[in-house]
């Protein structure tokens, strides 16, 4: 019944590693997003995907790459992890014309 799900919920890894976070939505929405919440709780959009096309990319390092195998999934791949990547990453989805986002529970990434 979960509308937007993310795995894993927690991810602890070392600098330099490559990791992925998975996101799935069962709402039939046509747009999915990734947001980053930093240690000060500031939320900033990273990517949005609409009909399998990248719409925006907010000055995110190219170590981050979203991959959407289908309309219901948007995974986030991160290469060469850095300490500054430690944050909570939220996946969200929406019907593009509605604007509102349904958020997943978040993935807390800790880079040591």
């Amino acid at each position, binding site marked *: 019944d979960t509308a937007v799900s993310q795995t894993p919920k927690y991810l602890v890894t070392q600098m330099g590693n490559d990791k992925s976070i998975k996101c799935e939505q069962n709402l039939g929405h046509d*747009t999915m*997003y990734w*947001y980053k919440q930093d240690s*000060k*709780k*500031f*939320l*900033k*959009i990273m990517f*949005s995907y*609409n009909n399998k096309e990248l*719409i*925006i990319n907010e000055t995110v390092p190219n170590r981050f790459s979203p991959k959407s195998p289908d309309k219901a999934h948007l995974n986030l791949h991160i290469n060469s992890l850095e300490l500054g990547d430690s944050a909570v990453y*939220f996946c*969200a989805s*929406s019907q*593009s*014309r*509605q*604007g*509102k*986002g*349904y*958020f*997943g*529970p*978040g993935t807390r990434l800790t880079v040591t």
Partner: protein
Amino acid sequence: AQSVTQPDIHITVSEGASLELRCNYSYGATPYLFWYVQSPGQGLQLLLKYFSGDTLVQGIKGFEAEFKRSQSSFNLRKPSVHWSDAAEYFCAVAPGGGGADGLTFGKGTHLIIQP
């Protein structure tokens, strides 16, 4: 570029008292406006949204918000807070008319409830 300002970083309210959280936005046209709540260690839950029409919108958990175009504001209110309302509250804006640009968030207001 659009922006959202939540001028109060922390607010402390006694249980049973009324609450108003402030939000101001900067955008060229009428945007879509949202309030989200985040409890500790949790995701974001949508409280209410404004797209068009009646400028006073009702949300879940007894919250309401009023859109004031002249003041570029979308303040959140609740007549009587409960201890369970302690959380982080985020105001957000999206381009009006839809589109896939996502949400621009304010920096949040941390609500503390005193017994």
